[in-house]
């Protein structure tokens, strides 16, 4: 009997433990269902905005620090029939939760923010989302940058998954002190002219390496990214077939990066590592090819003003990051949801999001607004940074990325990394191709 009691107690204890875990998981996965959040208060913040007796409640999942709560308050004041239940969570959690709820067919919100890198995963799941073209999205299509708009589209262009919120146009951040040490004029205009092409980039890299002993940039990854994003054809065609080996743009990007690596002009300092961060402050590398949102990272690592500056990338620009607002098909209020996201992504609101929280607008109309043009940053030598990013945003080439873009891209990044480790570029390329074909065969 004693034994039995022990067994009972033990199983009871394990039930309590398991139950607690299960509860927490449930809360995470279906965090939208009710505002009952004792288990996940830390991860998801929920805010109910609007009057209590509104006809329609929209559940809106967002991540990051967007400042949308302020904008939403404005919206519900003008539209009292709508309340918005805004739920902010960690970016990865949000995408996991969205994937799970779409896959399970229950628990998705009325509106979900989806990161640019994640939207491709849903290309096959058209039944699970509202086609925004059914809600006259073609009326607003012209307001957005063409390439951003197409980023959330099926290969044939008939299905629009989301409205773009912000973007991450890439520019060249550079250290004025290193450029001066190598005898160059360090003003943004001069550097932009000096490094107008990728051949120039290489020449300047050699010069800097010779005069200062410093690296041109941190690692091959960002050079490869920059050249990849300028390619009009990348890994897949619009039918989703692998074409990376059938045109030369990607191979050129790869060989260019490999050459720089082999000549020791580019470092082997992987992104986000401690030495990468400290390299920004100590000036181990002269440039960094990165998007608008990298400003904060640089400012955190090198507090001194006027050391880093910004100019355009050689031969155009690219994009890294940004988000879309999607409407999962489960919603019962597609119309209201669409009206809201159309309002939220309109130029006037994007300008507010930019001035308040630094979200870079996806609607070019903003780039001509006086508040935007006047935006200057003392940190980067008092230049009108927003204009530089705006120019970059308009120079991005539209490209269809495809469903498996990110895992495939990872394999080519590994190939770049292999080259940095001494592997023959041809061999590294071929291996990346083999691995890619195996991913696609799954």
């Amino acid at each position, binding site marked *: 009997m004693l034994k039995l009691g022990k067994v*009972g107690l033990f199983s*009871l204890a394990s039930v309590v433990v*398991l*139950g607690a875990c299960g509860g927490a998981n449930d809360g995470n996965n279906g965090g939208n269902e009710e505002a009952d959040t004792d288990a996940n208060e830390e991860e998801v913040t929920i805010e109910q905005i609007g009057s209590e007796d509104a006809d329609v409640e929209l559940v809106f999942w967002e991540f990051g620090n967007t400042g949308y709560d302020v904008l939403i308050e404005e919206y519900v004041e003008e539209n009292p029939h709508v309340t918005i239940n805004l739920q902010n969570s960690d970016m990865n959690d949000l995408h996991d939760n969205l994937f799970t709820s779409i896959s399970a067919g229950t628990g998705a919100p009325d509106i979900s923010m989806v990161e640019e890198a994640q939207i491709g995963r849903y290309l096959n799941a058209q039944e699970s989302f509202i086609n925004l073209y059914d809600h006259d999205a073609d009326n607003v299509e012209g307001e957005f940058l063409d390439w951003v708009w197409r980023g959330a589209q099926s290969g044939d262009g008939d299905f629009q998954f989301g409205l773009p919120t912000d973007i991450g146009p890439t520019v060249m951040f550079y250290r004025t002190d290193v450029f001066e040490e190598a005898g160059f004029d360090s003003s943004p205009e001069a550097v932009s002219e000096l490094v107008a092409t990728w051949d120039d980039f290489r020449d300047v890299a050699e010069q800097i390496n010779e005069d200062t002993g410093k690296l041109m940039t941190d690692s091959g990854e960002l050079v490869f990214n920059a050249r990849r994003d300028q390619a009009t054809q990348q890994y897949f065609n619009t039918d989703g077939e692998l074409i990376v080996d059938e045109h030369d743009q990607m191979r050129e990007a790869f060989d260019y990066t490999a050459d720089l690596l082999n000549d020791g002009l580019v470092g082997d300092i992987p992104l986000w*590592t401690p030495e990468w961060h400290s390299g920004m402050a100590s000036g181990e590398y002269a440039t960094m090819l990165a998007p608008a949102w990298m400003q904060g990272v640089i400012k955190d690592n090198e507090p001194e003003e006027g050391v880093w500056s910004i100019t355009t990338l050689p031969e155009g620009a690219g994009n890294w990051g940004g988000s879309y607002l999607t409407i999962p098909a489960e919603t019962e209020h597609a119309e209201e949801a669409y009206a809201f996201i159309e309002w939220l992504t309109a130029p006037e609101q994007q300008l507010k999001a930019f001035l308040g929280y630094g979200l870079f607008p996806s609607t070019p109309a903003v780039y001509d607004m006086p508040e935007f043009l006047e935006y200057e940053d003392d940190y980067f030598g008092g230049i009108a940074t927003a204009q530089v990013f705006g120019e970059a945003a308009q120079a991005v080439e539209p490209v269809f990325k495809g469903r498996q873009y990110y*895992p495939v891209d990872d394999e080519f990044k590994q190939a770049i*990394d292999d080259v940095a*480790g001494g592997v023959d570029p041809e061999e590294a390329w071929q291996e990346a191709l083999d*691995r890619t074909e195996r991913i696609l065969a799954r």
Partner: protein
Amino acid sequence: MKKRRMSDQKRTALSAYLFISPFYILFAIFGLFPMIFSFYLSFFRWDGLTPMEYVGFSNFEFIFSDPAFFSSIKNTFLIGIMGTLPQIIVALFLAFALNSQLVRFRNSFRTLVFLPYITSIVAVAIIFGVIFNNQPFGFANYVLSFFDIGPIRWNAEYWPVKIAIASMVFWRWVGYNTIIFLAGMQSIPKDLYEAAKIDGATILQQIRHITIPMLRPVIMFVVFTATIGSLQLFTEPLIFLGRGLREEGITVVAYLWRDAFVYNSFGSASAAAIVLFFIIIVLTTINFLITSRIGKSKKVG
């Protein structure tokens, strides 16, 4: 009267079943169902979003033709052996030292030695990521530079990857095993050691002829838990190598995780899980055969 007792018995039985039922209910939902579902899934092609498509055995054919899958199995065993074998030997000596009268502040050392076990694996992996840094000034490379060994790319080269991950496993588990050994050693009668000392046995001889034979069941336990632990190796390679999980360091569990959650190929991930399931069955059977033999030899002794 008789009837009454029957219902009493029944009632006891019923309450017992009720007491244990929550476990089984939860297990059925969170354990059994996922297991059966993944078995079912392994015959389908499914990206998690679109309808499943029956493909027969082609997921198995695929993973058996994927060199990365074999690498993952090989890695799991290599890292497993590299991480556990030295660990058990070192743990044995550590436990012996902590058990002997020679060491002062034994209780503090016992606590210290156990500390790595309770640290978060993610923290361990990040710290080891700093130690096994590819740069010349990374800690491990810096130390090696004194011996004229060039900077090693710890997260990309065949053996260095395994050494780095195995050393994480070693560091985290050595204390746990030490405590288990220590518990076993304390049940060994002290007079055996005293007698050995009188006969002039050295410490090494004591370990070889007294400690190890007396500890055999405990050693077996440690070997089994270490085997299971190394088959489940996942977090260390993931944090150390990133989501791409290079072929040089990927383990079986990491392989199937990557198939499911990076490639969205739940069918082949399930197939890999089924194969892992059979590998574990084979290993458990071998373990079982060995343990039952130990029981027999004990009776003879």
